[in-house]
């Protein structure tokens, strides 16, 4: 949506014949100055983290100390190996990938049943799924903890993935997208006698690539950034995720056993996967958000 509008705007400007020159002159330098200032404020904390992660001690008391140091390789090696961040990152990745793939598969199934099947009560089923928006993890984590103990799943990857698999948001976004696929295409498929499996694989999924990528990024960021639930349900370091790994580092640095440069190296590592995915796939991500709000 955003892209289309910007494109249309540009086309109109191009038709007026003076796109480049006119636009650059129209930009107000003051606006650019304010934007640059605000961008610096928004980026500053992470720039500090990045700079400090390359230094030896991590004691930075003035802005002049913010030039990168020469200890990057050693710091990152120490955090990844000695402080087990390699392991934590791997566990976070496993958790996030299982959640993304699992959610995607079962949500495509559910949305397909809701949009393309003529069966009774399906609106009720959709409402039943949508109602779970009222039940986020913070409302459920006390009983969920008891349930995991009963199931014997505490401290396993099952505990940090399976409860996340059902997603009202994903089903909702996919349903909205499926409803926007022209009926003529759907009817053609029916006339050709295409069965449900072929319809899903050769019609639905190819027509949903952008949305599938978009929801995958949304779900990956959501899964990767989970903190409260792993903190409660995972109690061995071997199975711990990166977010809670940061809490372990924080405990050590507050106790004075650890240099801040290592904590900032761990923080930078934990930020990288969701940040890179977001930057690379920003276009489908933004388009998917514009579906979500409708």
């Amino acid at each position: 949506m955003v892209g289309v509008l910007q494109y249309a705007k540009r086309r109109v400007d191009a038709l007026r014949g003076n796109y480049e020159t006119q636009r650059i002159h129209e930009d107000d330098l003051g606006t650019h100055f304010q934007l640059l200032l605000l961008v610096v404020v928004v980026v500053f904390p992470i720039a500090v983290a990045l700079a400090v992660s390359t230094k030896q001690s991590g004691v930075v008391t003035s802005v002049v100390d913010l030039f990168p140091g020469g200890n990057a390789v050693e710091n990152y090696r120490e955090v990844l190996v000695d402080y087990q961040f390699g392991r934590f990152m791997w566990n976070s990745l496993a958790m996030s990938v299982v959640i993304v793939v699992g959610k995607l598969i079962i949500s495509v199934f559910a949305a397909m049943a809701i949009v393309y099947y003529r069966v009774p009560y399906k609106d009720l089923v959709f409402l039943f799924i949508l109602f779970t928006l009222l039940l986020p993890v913070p409302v459920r984590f006390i009983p969920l903890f008891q349930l995991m103990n009963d199931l014997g799943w505490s401290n396993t990857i099952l505990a940090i993935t399976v409860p996340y698999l059902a997603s009202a948001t994903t089903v909702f976004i996919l349903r909205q997208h499926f409803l926007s696929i022209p009926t003529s295409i759907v009817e053609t498929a029916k006339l050709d006698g295409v069965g449900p499996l072929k319809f899903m694989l050769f019609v639905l999924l190819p027509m949903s690539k952008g949305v599938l990528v978009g929801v995958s990024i949304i779900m990956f960021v959501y899964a990767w950034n989970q903190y409260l639930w792993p903190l409660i349900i995972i109690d061995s370091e071997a199975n711990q995720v990166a977010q809670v790994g940061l809490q372990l580092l924080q405990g050590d640095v507050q106790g004075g056993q650890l240099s801040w440069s290592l904590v900032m190296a761990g923080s930078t590592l934990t930020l990288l996967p969701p940040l890179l995915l977001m930057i690379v796939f920003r276009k489908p991500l933004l388009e998917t958000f514009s579906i979500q709000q409708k």
Partner: protein
Amino acid sequence: MSTREIFDSRIESGLLLLPTLLVTVVFLYYPTALAFRTSFFDSSFGRAEVFVGLENYVGLLTSSGYHRSIFISVVFAAVVVVGVVVVSLYLTFLIHEVDTGQGLYLISVIWPYALPPAVGALVFLFITHPTLGVLTGPIESLGVEVDWFNNGSQAFVVVALAAIWKQIGYNVIFMIAAMNNVPDTLTETAELDGVGGLRRLVSVYIPIMTPTIFFLVIINTIYAFFGTFAFVDLLTSGGPSNATNILIFNLYQEGFSFFNFGVASAKSVVLFVIVGVLMFVQFQITDRYSYYGG
């Protein structure tokens, strides 16, 4: 609409819905029901549950600590929501105003969407650390003694700033889409009438963007109540003297520091009611505005 429903096998649609429904019932509805049930019991590790009726709720009604936590949560949410919306609106407006470098500015301010709250918390802990922080010197040169490990109001401000910082990205993503939807003719008319700069934002864009802003106010409120747990846990642990002990952290302590699952379940039910009210308000508002734009 009806032509989309090209399949009619109840068994197939049932199988497609089964995984989502199964996870929904077992890990979302059942734990919620369990929370309601346990809230009427005295329940902890290693001893038999005892039915106590409404005692847990009566305890909450009379607990001054819990009342304080509610008060702090409401003030915190108000500060975070207003801060996020105002900063994001202004940033969005500036980005909307420029044509050169728009894409670059956009990604430089929306990236905190991907920021893990735990990373944001540790970076803030570092840059505002009372003895080591990069910002501590500059702030103290303004005549403020940085002492937020002991000073409750300062701790509140640090947690709120970190929480606001993280949420700006998500808001700008939705606001830029809404602002780009404002017809160019309207902007041009406003400019011809001499309505420039900030006045155009306040009297032209904001009224048109009202549905989006309402949507974000609700999302941000839920975020402030529940999504900020990692900030509180890593920055202040609810302290000093409970100055930052918002409801979600209070609930976490009840469950996993004191192991009072009965009281914790009653507190979960309170949170459920809060989410319910917020979602209901959002639903009403979306309904009212569905005639416009969208």
